[in-house]
Protein backbone atom coordinates (compact mmCIF):
# COMPACT_ATOMS: atom_id res chain seq x y z
CA UNK A 1 0.00 0.00 0.00
CA UNK A 2 2.58 2.47 1.08
CA UNK A 3 4.82 1.44 -1.77
CA UNK A 4 2.03 1.98 -4.26
CA UNK A 5 1.39 5.40 -2.81
CA UNK A 6 5.04 6.38 -2.92
CA UNK A 7 5.54 5.54 -6.56
CA UNK A 8 3.44 8.31 -8.19
CA UNK A 9 4.99 10.80 -5.76
CA UNK A 10 8.42 9.79 -6.93
CA UNK A 11 7.30 10.10 -10.54
CA UNK A 12 5.94 13.58 -9.84
CA UNK A 13 9.20 14.51 -8.15
CA UNK A 14 11.17 13.31 -11.09
CA UNK A 15 8.95 15.29 -13.43
CA UNK A 16 9.46 18.38 -11.34
CA UNK A 17 13.19 17.87 -11.14
CA UNK A 18 13.50 17.43 -14.87
CA UNK A 19 11.32 20.50 -15.44
CA UNK A 20 13.58 22.47 -13.14
CA UNK A 21 16.63 21.14 -14.90
CA UNK A 22 15.17 22.22 -18.23
CA UNK A 23 14.43 25.64 -16.78
CA UNK A 24 17.97 26.14 -15.48
CA UNK A 25 19.33 24.89 -18.76
CA UNK A 26 17.17 27.35 -20.66
CA UNK A 27 18.17 30.18 -18.36
CA UNK A 28 21.83 29.40 -18.69
CA UNK A 29 21.57 29.17 -22.46
CA UNK A 30 19.76 32.53 -22.57
CA UNK A 31 22.41 33.93 -20.29
CA UNK A 32 25.22 32.71 -22.51
CA UNK A 33 23.57 33.98 -25.68
CA UNK A 34 22.84 37.38 -24.12
CA UNK A 35 26.39 37.77 -22.88
CA UNK A 36 27.79 36.78 -26.26
CA UNK A 37 25.56 39.33 -28.02
CA UNK A 38 26.50 42.04 -25.54
CA UNK A 39 30.20 41.33 -25.90
CA UNK A 40 29.87 41.37 -29.70
CA UNK A 41 28.13 44.76 -29.54
CA UNK A 42 30.88 46.07 -27.29
CA UNK A 43 33.50 44.63 -29.60
CA UNK A 44 31.85 46.35 -32.57
CA UNK A 45 31.77 49.71 -30.80
CA UNK A 46 35.36 49.41 -29.59
CA UNK A 47 36.55 48.30 -33.02
CA UNK A 48 34.74 51.23 -34.64
CA UNK A 49 36.45 53.71 -32.31
CA UNK A 50 39.89 52.19 -32.78
CA UNK A 51 39.44 51.94 -36.53
CA UNK A 52 38.44 55.60 -36.80
CA UNK A 53 41.50 56.80 -34.87
CA UNK A 54 43.91 54.59 -36.78
CA UNK A 55 42.31 55.38 -40.11
CA UNK A 56 42.46 59.14 -39.59
CA UNK A 57 46.09 59.08 -38.46
CA UNK A 58 47.21 56.72 -41.26
CA UNK A 59 45.25 58.67 -43.88
CA UNK A 60 46.80 61.93 -42.74
CA UNK A 61 50.30 60.59 -42.25
CA UNK A 62 51.63 61.27 -45.76
CA UNK A 63 50.37 64.85 -45.47
CA UNK A 64 51.89 65.29 -42.03
CA UNK A 65 55.38 64.53 -43.36
CA UNK A 66 55.02 66.94 -46.29
CA UNK A 67 56.87 70.17 -45.41
CA UNK A 68 54.44 72.44 -47.30
CA UNK A 69 51.64 71.24 -45.03
CA UNK A 70 53.24 73.14 -42.16
CA UNK A 71 53.83 76.29 -44.26
CA UNK A 72 51.78 79.37 -44.95
CA UNK A 73 50.69 78.69 -48.54
CA UNK A 74 47.21 77.55 -49.54
CA UNK A 75 48.25 73.96 -48.86
CA UNK A 76 49.75 74.82 -45.47
CA UNK A 77 48.05 75.08 -42.13
CA UNK A 78 50.43 77.31 -40.16
CA UNK A 79 47.87 80.19 -40.08
CA UNK A 80 45.10 77.85 -38.97
CA UNK A 81 47.26 76.38 -36.20
CA UNK A 82 48.13 79.88 -35.02
CA UNK A 83 44.46 80.92 -35.11
CA UNK A 84 43.33 77.80 -33.28
CA UNK A 85 45.72 78.36 -30.40
CA UNK A 86 45.05 82.09 -30.41
CA UNK A 87 41.32 81.56 -30.07
CA UNK A 88 41.92 78.82 -27.50
CA UNK A 89 43.96 81.12 -25.28
CA UNK A 90 41.67 84.13 -25.81
CA UNK A 91 38.62 82.05 -24.89
CA UNK A 92 40.25 80.49 -21.85
CA UNK A 93 41.35 83.92 -20.60
CA UNK A 94 37.70 84.96 -20.50
CA UNK A 95 36.15 81.59 -19.69
CA UNK A 96 38.27 80.47 -16.73
CA UNK A 97 37.85 83.51 -14.46
CA UNK A 98 34.16 83.93 -15.22
CA UNK A 99 33.16 80.31 -14.77
CA UNK A 100 35.49 79.81 -11.80
CA UNK A 101 33.92 82.83 -10.13
CA UNK A 102 30.46 81.45 -10.83
CA UNK A 103 31.47 78.07 -9.42
CA UNK A 104 32.96 79.71 -6.31
CA UNK A 105 29.67 81.50 -5.70
CA UNK A 106 27.65 78.32 -6.10
CA UNK A 107 29.89 76.16 -3.91
CA UNK A 108 31.17 78.60 -1.30
CA UNK A 109 28.65 81.40 -0.91
CA UNK A 110 25.21 80.46 -2.14
CA UNK A 111 22.85 78.75 0.29
CA UNK A 112 21.59 75.39 -0.94
CA UNK A 113 18.22 75.53 -2.60
CA UNK A 114 16.26 77.35 -5.24
CA UNK A 115 19.01 79.67 -6.50
CA UNK A 116 21.41 76.81 -7.26
CA UNK A 117 18.60 74.89 -8.94
CA UNK A 118 17.87 77.85 -11.21
CA UNK A 119 21.53 78.18 -12.21
CA UNK A 120 21.82 74.45 -12.85
CA UNK A 121 18.66 74.44 -14.91
CA UNK A 122 20.01 77.37 -16.95
CA UNK A 123 23.31 75.52 -17.41
CA UNK A 124 21.58 72.36 -18.58
CA UNK A 125 19.42 74.32 -21.01
CA UNK A 126 22.35 76.27 -22.39
CA UNK A 127 24.39 73.11 -22.88
CA UNK A 128 21.48 71.68 -24.88
CA UNK A 129 21.41 74.59 -27.33
CA UNK A 130 22.94 73.44 -30.64
CA UNK A 131 26.28 75.12 -31.26
CA UNK A 132 25.10 76.26 -34.69
CA UNK A 133 22.22 78.17 -33.10
CA UNK A 134 24.59 79.62 -30.53
CA UNK A 135 26.78 80.70 -33.43
CA UNK A 136 23.86 82.58 -34.96
CA UNK A 137 23.21 84.21 -31.58
CA UNK A 138 26.87 85.23 -31.37
CA UNK A 139 26.73 86.64 -34.88
CA UNK A 140 23.69 88.76 -34.02
CA UNK A 141 24.71 89.96 -30.57
CA UNK A 142 28.50 90.20 -30.68
CA UNK A 143 29.23 90.77 -34.37
CA UNK A 144 26.25 92.97 -35.30
CA UNK A 145 24.76 94.60 -32.19
CA UNK A 146 28.05 95.02 -30.33
CA UNK A 147 29.83 96.14 -33.53
CA UNK A 148 32.68 93.68 -33.15
CA UNK A 149 32.18 92.50 -36.70
CA UNK A 150 33.01 88.96 -37.70
CA UNK A 151 36.09 88.67 -35.55
CA UNK A 152 38.16 86.58 -33.20
CA UNK A 153 36.67 88.42 -30.23
CA UNK A 154 33.12 87.62 -31.34
CA UNK A 155 34.21 84.00 -31.79
CA UNK A 156 35.78 83.83 -28.35
CA UNK A 157 32.69 85.31 -26.69
CA UNK A 158 30.49 82.79 -28.50
CA UNK A 159 32.77 80.00 -27.31
CA UNK A 160 32.41 81.43 -23.81
CA UNK A 161 28.63 81.01 -24.04
CA UNK A 162 29.08 77.51 -25.45
CA UNK A 163 31.55 76.26 -22.84
CA UNK A 164 30.27 78.12 -19.79
CA UNK A 165 27.97 75.28 -18.61
CA UNK A 166 30.68 72.61 -18.96
CA UNK A 167 33.35 74.76 -17.29
CA UNK A 168 31.00 75.70 -14.47
CA UNK A 169 30.20 72.05 -13.77
CA UNK A 170 33.85 70.98 -13.89
CA UNK A 171 34.94 73.81 -11.58
CA UNK A 172 32.07 73.12 -9.19
CA UNK A 173 33.25 69.53 -8.96
CA UNK A 174 36.80 70.75 -8.39
CA UNK A 175 35.74 72.98 -5.49
CA UNK A 176 33.49 70.31 -4.02
CA UNK A 177 36.44 67.92 -3.97
CA UNK A 178 38.10 70.11 -1.31
CA UNK A 179 37.29 68.66 2.13
CA UNK A 180 35.25 70.91 4.40
CA UNK A 181 37.75 70.60 7.29
CA UNK A 182 40.17 72.80 5.39
CA UNK A 183 37.60 75.58 4.97
CA UNK A 184 36.54 75.36 8.59
CA UNK A 185 40.15 75.40 9.74
CA UNK A 186 40.86 78.58 7.79
CA UNK A 187 37.67 80.28 8.98
CA UNK A 188 38.38 79.26 12.58
CA UNK A 189 41.73 81.00 12.34
CA UNK A 190 39.85 84.20 11.61
CA UNK A 191 40.23 84.36 7.84
CA UNK A 192 37.45 86.02 5.89
CA UNK A 193 35.64 83.81 3.44
CA UNK A 194 37.48 85.19 0.41
CA UNK A 195 40.83 84.79 2.15
CA UNK A 196 39.97 81.18 3.01
CA UNK A 197 39.05 80.52 -0.61
CA UNK A 198 42.14 82.23 -1.98
CA UNK A 199 44.69 80.69 0.35
CA UNK A 200 43.19 77.27 1.10
CA UNK A 201 40.41 76.16 -1.22
CA UNK A 202 41.77 77.25 -4.59
CA UNK A 203 45.31 75.89 -4.11
CA UNK A 204 43.92 72.55 -2.95
CA UNK A 205 41.53 72.36 -5.88
CA UNK A 206 44.13 73.55 -8.40
CA UNK A 207 44.97 70.18 -10.04
CA UNK A 208 41.28 69.41 -10.59
CA UNK A 209 40.76 72.94 -11.91
CA UNK A 210 43.61 72.41 -14.37
CA UNK A 211 42.02 69.15 -15.53
CA UNK A 212 38.84 71.12 -16.14
CA UNK A 213 40.69 73.75 -18.15
CA UNK A 214 42.27 71.02 -20.27
CA UNK A 215 38.91 69.37 -20.93
CA UNK A 216 37.35 72.67 -22.05
CA UNK A 217 40.42 73.23 -24.24
CA UNK A 218 39.56 70.02 -26.09
CA UNK A 219 36.06 71.28 -26.72
CA UNK A 220 37.28 74.70 -27.91
CA UNK A 221 39.81 73.22 -30.33
CA UNK A 222 37.20 70.89 -31.81
CA UNK A 223 34.41 73.43 -32.13
CA UNK A 224 33.41 74.57 -35.58
CA UNK A 225 29.68 75.23 -35.98
CA UNK A 226 29.67 78.11 -33.49
CA UNK A 227 32.56 79.78 -35.30
CA UNK A 228 31.56 79.82 -38.95
CA UNK A 229 29.23 82.83 -38.50
CA UNK A 230 31.18 84.60 -35.77
CA UNK A 231 34.80 84.24 -36.90
CA UNK A 232 34.23 83.64 -40.57
CA UNK A 233 35.79 81.14 -42.90
CA UNK A 234 38.59 83.30 -44.29
CA UNK A 235 41.82 84.86 -43.19
CA UNK A 236 42.93 88.44 -43.81
CA UNK A 237 46.34 88.98 -45.43
CA UNK A 238 48.37 88.54 -42.27
CA UNK A 239 46.98 86.40 -39.48
CA UNK A 240 50.07 86.34 -37.29
CA UNK A 241 48.99 89.29 -35.18
CA UNK A 242 47.36 89.49 -31.79
CA UNK A 243 44.62 91.77 -33.12
CA UNK A 244 41.34 90.33 -31.80
CA UNK A 245 39.17 92.24 -34.24
CA UNK A 246 40.14 90.45 -37.45
CA UNK A 247 38.20 87.50 -38.86
CA UNK A 248 40.07 84.24 -39.09
CA UNK A 249 39.54 80.54 -39.59
CA UNK A 250 40.67 77.66 -37.42
CA UNK A 251 41.72 74.09 -38.15
CA UNK A 252 38.11 72.90 -37.93
CA UNK A 253 36.46 75.66 -39.94
CA UNK A 254 39.16 75.44 -42.62
CA UNK A 255 38.56 71.69 -42.87
CA UNK A 256 34.84 72.38 -43.25
CA UNK A 257 35.45 75.00 -45.92
CA UNK A 258 37.89 72.83 -47.87
CA UNK A 259 35.52 69.89 -48.15
CA UNK A 260 32.24 71.80 -48.01
CA UNK A 261 31.26 75.20 -49.40
CA UNK A 262 34.76 76.07 -50.61
CA UNK A 263 35.60 72.85 -52.43
CA UNK A 264 37.15 73.76 -55.77
CA UNK A 265 37.56 77.47 -54.98
CA UNK A 266 40.74 77.34 -52.93
CA UNK A 267 43.23 77.07 -55.77
CA UNK A 268 44.05 73.50 -54.82
CA UNK A 269 43.22 70.41 -56.80
CA UNK A 270 40.57 68.14 -55.39
CA UNK A 271 43.21 65.57 -54.39
CA UNK A 272 45.25 68.26 -52.64
CA UNK A 273 42.16 69.45 -50.79
CA UNK A 274 41.49 65.93 -49.56
CA UNK A 275 45.11 65.51 -48.55
CA UNK A 276 45.11 68.75 -46.54
CA UNK A 277 41.77 67.79 -44.98
CA UNK A 278 43.17 64.39 -44.02
CA UNK A 279 46.21 66.11 -42.52
CA UNK A 280 44.04 68.49 -40.49
CA UNK A 281 41.93 65.57 -39.24
CA UNK A 282 45.07 63.75 -38.13
CA UNK A 283 46.38 66.86 -36.37
CA UNK A 284 43.05 67.34 -34.58
CA UNK A 285 42.91 63.70 -33.49
CA UNK A 286 46.49 63.83 -32.20
CA UNK A 287 45.80 67.08 -30.32
CA UNK A 288 42.70 65.51 -28.79
CA UNK A 289 44.60 62.40 -27.74
CA UNK A 290 47.32 64.56 -26.16
CA UNK A 291 44.72 66.60 -24.30
CA UNK A 292 43.06 63.47 -23.02
CA UNK A 293 46.33 61.88 -21.98
CA UNK A 294 47.41 64.97 -20.05
CA UNK A 295 44.04 65.23 -18.32
CA UNK A 296 44.40 61.58 -17.30
CA UNK A 297 47.98 62.10 -16.14
CA UNK A 298 46.88 64.95 -13.89
CA UNK A 299 44.01 62.83 -12.63
CA UNK A 300 46.42 60.06 -11.70
CA UNK A 301 48.71 62.60 -10.04
CA UNK A 302 45.80 63.80 -7.90
CA UNK A 303 44.92 60.25 -6.93
CA UNK A 304 48.53 59.57 -5.98
CA UNK A 305 48.71 62.67 -3.88
CA UNK A 306 45.48 62.01 -2.03
CA UNK A 307 46.38 58.39 -1.33
CA UNK A 308 49.87 59.42 -0.16
CA UNK A 309 48.51 62.06 2.21
Amino acid sequence: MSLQEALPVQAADEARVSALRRLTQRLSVTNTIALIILSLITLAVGALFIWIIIYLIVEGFTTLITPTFWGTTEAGIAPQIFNTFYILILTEIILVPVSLAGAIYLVEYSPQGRFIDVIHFAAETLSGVPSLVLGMFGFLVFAVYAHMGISRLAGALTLLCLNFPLALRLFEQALQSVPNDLREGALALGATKWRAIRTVVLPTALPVIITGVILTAGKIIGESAALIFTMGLFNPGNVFTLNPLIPSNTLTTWLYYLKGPGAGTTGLTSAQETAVAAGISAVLIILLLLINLSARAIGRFIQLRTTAA
Partner: protein
Amino acid sequence: MQVAESAQQAQHSQRSRLFDRIMSVIFLICAVLLVAIILSVIFFIASQSWQVFVQGGVGFFQYYFGSFWDPTGASGSPAYGAGGLIIGSVVTTVLAMVIVVPFAIGTAVFFTEAAPQWVIRILQPLIEVFTGIPSVVIGFLGLVTIIPVVQKISAPITGNLPTGGYGWATAILVLVIMVLPTTLSISIDSLRAVPDSVREASLALGSTRWQMMWRAVIPACAASLGTAVVLGFTRAIGEALAVSLVLAGAQIPAWPWSLAVFFQPNVNITQQIAQNFQETAGTAQYAYWTLAFTLLVITLIFVSISRFLSSRSVYK
Protein backbone atom coordinates in the same frame (compact mmCIF):
# COMPACT_ATOMS: atom_id res chain seq x y z
CA MET B 1 49.96 103.06 21.33
CA GLN B 2 47.94 99.96 21.97
CA VAL B 3 44.71 101.82 21.25
CA ALA B 4 46.07 103.00 17.92
CA GLU B 5 47.13 99.50 17.02
CA SER B 6 43.78 97.97 17.80
CA ALA B 7 42.03 100.74 15.91
CA GLN B 8 44.27 99.98 12.97
CA GLN B 9 43.43 96.31 13.29
CA ALA B 10 39.72 97.06 13.42
CA GLN B 11 40.08 99.20 10.33
CA HIS B 12 42.00 96.43 8.63
CA SER B 13 39.42 93.78 9.42
CA GLN B 14 36.64 96.14 8.34
CA ARG B 15 38.40 96.68 5.05
CA SER B 16 38.89 92.98 4.47
CA ARG B 17 35.24 92.34 5.33
CA LEU B 18 34.22 94.95 2.78
CA PHE B 19 36.52 93.35 0.26
CA ASP B 20 34.94 89.99 1.03
CA ARG B 21 31.51 91.46 0.35
CA ILE B 22 32.66 92.96 -2.96
CA MET B 23 34.17 89.65 -4.10
CA SER B 24 31.00 87.76 -3.26
CA VAL B 25 28.99 90.21 -5.37
CA ILE B 26 31.39 89.72 -8.29
CA PHE B 27 31.03 85.93 -7.97
CA LEU B 28 27.26 86.29 -7.84
CA ILE B 29 27.31 88.34 -11.06
CA CYS B 30 29.32 85.64 -12.82
CA ALA B 31 26.87 82.94 -11.73
CA VAL B 32 23.89 85.01 -12.82
CA LEU B 33 25.60 85.72 -16.15
CA LEU B 34 24.82 82.13 -17.12
CA VAL B 35 21.11 82.75 -16.67
CA ALA B 36 21.44 86.02 -18.57
CA ILE B 37 23.10 84.21 -21.49
CA ILE B 38 20.42 81.55 -21.89
CA LEU B 39 17.62 84.11 -21.53
CA SER B 40 19.18 86.40 -24.12
CA VAL B 41 19.75 83.47 -26.49
CA ILE B 42 16.05 82.69 -26.32
CA PHE B 43 15.02 86.35 -26.48
CA PHE B 44 17.20 87.42 -29.41
CA ILE B 45 16.50 84.38 -31.54
CA ALA B 46 12.77 84.63 -30.86
CA SER B 47 12.78 88.34 -31.65
CA GLN B 48 14.38 87.67 -35.03
CA SER B 49 12.31 84.66 -35.89
CA TRP B 50 8.78 86.07 -35.79
CA GLN B 51 9.80 88.72 -38.32
CA VAL B 52 9.37 86.27 -41.16
CA PHE B 53 5.68 86.12 -40.34
CA VAL B 54 5.27 89.85 -39.62
CA GLN B 55 7.62 91.66 -41.98
CA GLY B 56 7.87 88.90 -44.56
CA GLY B 57 4.16 88.23 -44.56
CA VAL B 58 4.72 84.52 -44.80
CA GLY B 59 1.86 82.42 -43.47
CA PHE B 60 2.57 80.22 -40.47
CA PHE B 61 0.99 77.23 -42.16
CA GLN B 62 2.80 77.97 -45.41
CA TYR B 63 6.12 78.12 -43.53
CA TYR B 64 5.87 74.91 -41.56
CA PHE B 65 3.98 72.76 -44.06
CA GLY B 66 5.33 74.04 -47.36
CA SER B 67 7.93 71.79 -48.92
CA PHE B 68 9.81 74.14 -51.23
CA TRP B 69 12.66 76.01 -49.54
CA ASP B 70 14.15 78.89 -51.47
CA PRO B 71 14.14 82.07 -49.35
CA THR B 72 16.54 83.95 -51.62
CA GLY B 73 14.41 83.31 -54.67
CA ALA B 74 17.20 81.69 -56.68
CA SER B 75 14.65 79.91 -58.84
CA GLY B 76 12.27 82.79 -59.48
CA SER B 77 10.23 83.94 -56.49
CA PRO B 78 11.19 83.26 -52.87
CA ALA B 79 9.55 80.24 -51.24
CA TYR B 80 9.52 79.61 -47.52
CA GLY B 81 8.46 76.00 -47.08
CA ALA B 82 10.48 74.62 -44.18
CA GLY B 83 8.49 71.39 -43.92
CA GLY B 84 11.01 69.41 -45.94
CA LEU B 85 13.92 70.57 -43.80
CA ILE B 86 12.10 69.63 -40.63
CA ILE B 87 11.26 66.20 -42.04
CA GLY B 88 14.95 65.81 -42.93
CA SER B 89 16.01 66.57 -39.36
CA VAL B 90 13.39 64.29 -37.85
CA VAL B 91 14.10 61.34 -40.17
CA THR B 92 17.89 61.46 -39.74
CA THR B 93 17.70 61.99 -35.97
CA VAL B 94 15.14 59.28 -35.29
CA LEU B 95 16.77 56.65 -37.48
CA ALA B 96 20.23 57.45 -36.11
CA MET B 97 18.91 57.03 -32.58
CA VAL B 98 17.23 53.74 -33.51
CA ILE B 99 20.73 52.47 -34.32
CA VAL B 100 22.46 54.23 -31.43
CA VAL B 101 20.19 53.09 -28.58
CA PRO B 102 20.80 49.30 -28.74
CA PHE B 103 24.52 49.78 -29.34
CA ALA B 104 24.94 52.38 -26.61
CA ILE B 105 22.89 50.60 -23.96
CA GLY B 106 24.21 47.15 -24.91
CA THR B 107 27.79 48.34 -24.67
CA ALA B 108 27.09 50.21 -21.45
CA VAL B 109 25.52 47.13 -19.84
CA PHE B 110 28.39 44.88 -20.87
CA PHE B 111 30.89 47.55 -19.85
CA THR B 112 29.53 47.98 -16.32
CA GLU B 113 28.26 44.48 -15.56
CA ALA B 114 30.35 41.89 -17.31
CA ALA B 115 33.44 43.34 -18.94
CA PRO B 116 36.87 42.13 -17.83
CA GLN B 117 39.26 44.77 -16.53
CA TRP B 118 41.33 45.00 -19.71
CA VAL B 119 38.26 45.86 -21.81
CA ILE B 120 37.42 48.68 -19.41
CA ARG B 121 40.97 49.94 -19.54
CA ILE B 122 40.87 50.14 -23.34
CA LEU B 123 37.32 51.36 -23.81
CA GLN B 124 37.16 54.04 -21.10
CA PRO B 125 39.71 56.42 -22.66
CA LEU B 126 38.31 55.74 -26.15
CA ILE B 127 34.85 56.84 -25.06
CA GLU B 128 36.30 59.96 -23.45
CA VAL B 129 38.20 60.87 -26.62
CA PHE B 130 35.19 60.28 -28.83
CA THR B 131 32.74 62.35 -26.78
CA GLY B 132 34.85 65.35 -27.75
CA ILE B 133 35.66 64.45 -31.33
CA PRO B 134 35.30 67.44 -33.69
CA SER B 135 32.22 67.03 -35.84
CA VAL B 136 33.97 68.17 -39.03
CA VAL B 137 36.46 65.33 -38.64
CA ILE B 138 33.62 62.82 -38.60
CA GLY B 139 32.07 64.65 -41.54
CA PHE B 140 35.34 64.27 -43.43
CA LEU B 141 35.46 60.59 -42.49
CA GLY B 142 31.94 60.25 -43.86
CA LEU B 143 32.96 61.90 -47.11
CA VAL B 144 36.00 59.73 -47.76
CA THR B 145 34.90 56.38 -46.35
CA ILE B 146 31.13 56.08 -45.91
CA ILE B 147 29.95 57.82 -49.08
CA PRO B 148 31.86 55.58 -51.54
CA VAL B 149 30.55 52.47 -49.78
CA VAL B 150 26.97 53.72 -49.60
CA GLN B 151 27.17 54.79 -53.22
CA LYS B 152 28.25 51.31 -54.30
CA ILE B 153 25.59 49.58 -52.25
CA SER B 154 22.82 51.90 -53.36
CA ALA B 155 23.77 51.96 -57.06
CA PRO B 156 20.98 49.54 -58.10
CA ILE B 157 18.42 51.57 -56.14
CA THR B 158 19.39 55.03 -57.32
CA GLY B 159 20.19 53.98 -60.87
CA ASN B 160 23.88 54.90 -60.64
CA LEU B 161 23.24 58.50 -59.69
CA PRO B 162 26.59 60.35 -59.86
CA THR B 163 25.79 62.11 -56.58
CA GLY B 164 24.46 58.90 -55.04
CA GLY B 165 25.82 58.18 -51.60
CA TYR B 166 25.27 61.72 -50.37
CA GLY B 167 22.08 62.08 -48.40
CA TRP B 168 20.13 60.78 -45.47
CA ALA B 169 21.68 57.30 -45.27
CA THR B 170 25.22 58.65 -44.89
CA ALA B 171 23.99 61.43 -42.61
CA ILE B 172 22.40 58.82 -40.34
CA LEU B 173 25.66 56.85 -40.13
CA VAL B 174 27.63 60.04 -39.41
CA LEU B 175 25.14 60.97 -36.70
CA VAL B 176 25.51 57.50 -35.19
CA ILE B 177 29.26 58.04 -34.81
CA MET B 178 28.69 61.52 -33.40
CA VAL B 179 26.01 60.60 -30.87
CA LEU B 180 27.01 57.10 -29.79
CA PRO B 181 29.86 58.18 -27.45
CA THR B 182 27.69 60.74 -25.62
CA THR B 183 24.76 58.37 -25.16
CA LEU B 184 27.14 55.58 -24.18
CA SER B 185 28.99 57.57 -21.56
CA ILE B 186 25.79 58.88 -19.93
CA SER B 187 24.36 55.34 -19.95
CA ILE B 188 27.50 54.04 -18.25
CA ASP B 189 27.21 56.76 -15.60
CA SER B 190 23.60 55.87 -14.89
CA LEU B 191 24.33 52.12 -14.69
CA ARG B 192 27.22 52.79 -12.36
CA ALA B 193 24.94 54.81 -10.10
CA VAL B 194 22.92 51.66 -9.34
CA PRO B 195 24.22 50.38 -5.98
CA ASP B 196 25.74 46.91 -5.83
CA SER B 197 23.12 45.81 -3.32
CA VAL B 198 20.60 45.67 -6.19
CA ARG B 199 22.90 43.32 -8.11
CA GLU B 200 23.69 41.20 -5.05
CA ALA B 201 20.03 40.87 -4.11
CA SER B 202 19.17 39.71 -7.59
CA LEU B 203 22.04 37.20 -7.76
CA ALA B 204 21.26 35.92 -4.27
CA LEU B 205 17.74 35.08 -5.45
CA GLY B 206 19.33 32.80 -8.00
CA SER B 207 19.26 34.99 -11.11
CA THR B 208 21.67 34.40 -13.92
CA ARG B 209 23.81 37.40 -14.81
CA TRP B 210 21.59 38.25 -17.74
CA GLN B 211 18.46 38.12 -15.53
CA MET B 212 20.25 40.33 -13.06
CA MET B 213 21.01 42.92 -15.77
CA TRP B 214 17.66 42.72 -17.54
CA ARG B 215 15.31 42.35 -14.58
CA ALA B 216 17.11 44.25 -11.82
CA VAL B 217 19.78 46.69 -12.98
CA ILE B 218 18.18 48.12 -16.12
CA PRO B 219 14.75 48.72 -14.51
CA ALA B 220 16.50 50.29 -11.54
CA CYS B 221 18.00 52.98 -13.76
CA ALA B 222 15.45 53.09 -16.57
CA ALA B 223 14.71 56.76 -16.01
CA SER B 224 18.35 57.82 -16.21
CA LEU B 225 18.92 55.61 -19.27
CA GLY B 226 16.00 57.55 -20.72
CA THR B 227 17.90 60.74 -19.97
CA ALA B 228 20.86 59.38 -21.91
CA VAL B 229 18.66 58.67 -24.92
CA VAL B 230 16.97 62.08 -24.79
CA LEU B 231 20.32 63.86 -24.57
CA GLY B 232 21.40 61.78 -27.57
CA PHE B 233 18.40 63.14 -29.46
CA THR B 234 19.33 66.69 -28.44
CA ARG B 235 22.84 66.22 -29.71
CA ALA B 236 21.74 64.55 -32.95
CA ILE B 237 19.18 67.14 -33.98
CA GLY B 238 21.59 70.01 -33.36
CA GLU B 239 24.53 68.41 -35.13
CA ALA B 240 25.46 70.66 -38.00
CA LEU B 241 28.69 70.57 -39.96
CA ALA B 242 29.32 66.83 -40.15
CA VAL B 243 25.80 66.31 -41.44
CA SER B 244 26.06 69.33 -43.69
CA LEU B 245 29.13 67.89 -45.45
CA VAL B 246 27.42 64.62 -46.36
CA LEU B 247 23.90 65.86 -47.14
CA ALA B 248 24.87 68.37 -49.83
CA GLY B 249 21.33 68.90 -51.04
CA ALA B 250 19.25 71.99 -51.83
CA GLN B 251 15.69 70.64 -51.69
CA ILE B 252 13.90 67.65 -50.30
CA PRO B 253 13.21 65.24 -53.19
CA ALA B 254 9.69 65.51 -54.59
CA TRP B 255 6.96 63.20 -53.34
CA PRO B 256 6.34 60.24 -53.93
CA TRP B 257 9.47 58.76 -52.47
CA SER B 258 11.04 55.42 -53.13
CA LEU B 259 13.86 53.87 -51.13
CA ALA B 260 16.21 55.97 -53.27
CA VAL B 261 15.31 59.04 -51.22
CA PHE B 262 17.85 57.94 -48.64
CA PHE B 263 20.69 57.82 -51.14
CA GLN B 264 20.45 61.12 -52.98
CA PRO B 265 21.44 64.66 -51.92
CA ASN B 266 19.00 65.86 -49.34
CA VAL B 267 18.45 68.49 -46.68
CA ASN B 268 17.83 69.06 -43.01
CA ILE B 269 17.52 72.15 -40.83
CA THR B 270 21.14 72.54 -39.74
CA GLN B 271 22.59 71.88 -43.18
CA GLN B 272 20.54 74.68 -44.74
CA ILE B 273 21.46 77.12 -41.97
CA ALA B 274 25.16 76.27 -42.14
CA GLN B 275 25.23 76.56 -45.91
CA ASN B 276 23.13 79.63 -46.59
CA PHE B 277 22.48 81.74 -43.49
CA GLN B 278 25.46 84.05 -43.91
CA GLU B 279 24.70 85.10 -47.47
CA THR B 280 21.14 86.18 -46.79
CA ALA B 281 19.52 89.41 -45.67
CA GLY B 282 16.06 90.72 -44.92
CA THR B 283 13.15 88.34 -45.07
CA ALA B 284 15.36 85.50 -46.31
CA GLN B 285 17.53 85.81 -43.22
CA TYR B 286 14.49 85.98 -40.96
CA ALA B 287 13.40 82.67 -42.49
CA TYR B 288 16.67 81.13 -41.29
CA TRP B 289 16.20 82.67 -37.84
CA THR B 290 12.83 80.96 -37.66
CA LEU B 291 14.57 77.68 -38.44
CA ALA B 292 17.01 78.35 -35.62
CA PHE B 293 14.16 79.16 -33.25
CA THR B 294 12.36 75.95 -34.21
CA LEU B 295 15.53 74.02 -33.45
CA LEU B 296 15.92 75.88 -30.17
CA VAL B 297 12.36 75.05 -29.11
CA ILE B 298 12.85 71.38 -29.99
CA THR B 299 16.03 71.17 -27.92
CA LEU B 300 14.38 73.03 -25.02
CA ILE B 301 11.61 70.42 -25.06
CA PHE B 302 14.22 67.64 -25.07
CA VAL B 303 16.10 69.23 -22.17
CA SER B 304 12.86 69.52 -20.19
CA ILE B 305 12.06 65.86 -20.84
CA SER B 306 15.53 64.80 -19.75
CA ARG B 307 15.21 66.93 -16.62
CA PHE B 308 11.86 65.37 -15.84
CA LEU B 309 13.28 61.88 -16.33
CA SER B 310 16.31 62.55 -14.16
CA SER B 311 14.02 63.89 -11.42
CA ARG B 312 12.23 60.55 -11.57
CA SER B 313 15.36 58.42 -11.35
CA VAL B 314 16.04 56.75 -8.02
CA TYR B 315 19.80 56.46 -8.16
CA LYS B 316 21.90 59.47 -9.21
